[in-house]
């Protein structure tokens, strides 16, 4: 890597509370959605499938989660019928 090494910083001190808060937000989101009976949404399913990737070894967890949420196909679609994206692949390109 061509950049200088950063000086030693305790990254756990710096970011643990932020990560803890975000993890609890995921947990409470799932609790909320379950209470509302909406667990069958494909986006929730995609989130649940991504969560075990947090326990993977190696420093590529973020990339692995993004890959798990991505459209895996290679060919352009015939026509765009919407402009937005949902955040998880629905199974239909």
């Amino acid at each position: 890597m061509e950049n200088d090494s950063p000086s030693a910083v305790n990254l756990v001190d710096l970011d643990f509370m932020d990560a803890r808060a975000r993890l609890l937000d995921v947990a409470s989101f799932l609790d909320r959605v379950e209470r509302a009976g909406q667990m069958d949404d494909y986006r929730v399913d995609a989130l649940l499938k991504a969560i075990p990737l947090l326990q993977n070894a190696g420093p590529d967890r973020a990339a692995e989660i993004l890959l798990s949420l991505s459209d895996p196909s290679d060919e352009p679609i015939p026509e765009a019928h919407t402009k937005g994206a949902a955040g998880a692949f629905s199974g239909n390109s």
Partner: protein
Amino acid sequence: MKYIEPHAHMVSRTTADYEAMALAGCQVISEPAFWAGYDRSSEQGFHDYFSLLTGFEPQRAAKFGIKHFTWMCINPKESEDVGLANAVIDLIPEFLKCDNVLGIGEIGLNKNSRNELGVLERHIAVADEHDQLILVHTPHLEDKLKGTKLIIDALKNFPNIKPERVIIDHVEEHTVAPVKDAGFWAGMTLYPESKLTSRRAIDILEKFGTDKIWMNCACDWGVSEPLATPKAARMMAQRGHSEKMIEKVFFDNPRDFMAQSPKFEI
């Protein structure tokens, strides 16, 4: 700290945003042409927009001591009306003569459709013909991986387009490697929810290095943060990075990329 904001849609922002950016040390803003939030109804609407980007907006920025540059295109979100897209692309060469226009952008893909790809290829051809820099938008969320691959393939089909004169923006952890491996510049966009947080963007710098990469706020009419870029610089300092490294990412790199256009002067 002086910095360059290499991607911001200032026509959608207030003078208070300009003032805040100037106070934070912003020297230069580069503003790619963008989607208005609705589809424009005619090429004349684009002509007016391009006139705004090349006329009034640089004057607005100058009031805050900020130099303003821009890029020309029709956004991929408006590619399904191919007739309109072609009419807009035909307008672009006239505007490439303007003093603050650095190139073609932000072109790219949105939903990865055939028409989007065709319009992207027409834009690349204009850049090729007029020897322009290119700024590329990659799709959102689940469409980003596939779109990034299609964009790289499309660019490689133009042998005269040099990768070092193209920046592929909005990379994330799963798309930065193919962009950098192909020799292109990579842009990282800091957004409150989608795209990248400052923490993740700095992680990418630490893994992939600081050559040929920049960060931007891409602030527009939606939920976005005009000061995201200097805030990320502050976070880099908290992470122990040197002033020299921070200046490289937030000033030297965007200057070096954009200075490939003879119009870019600070």
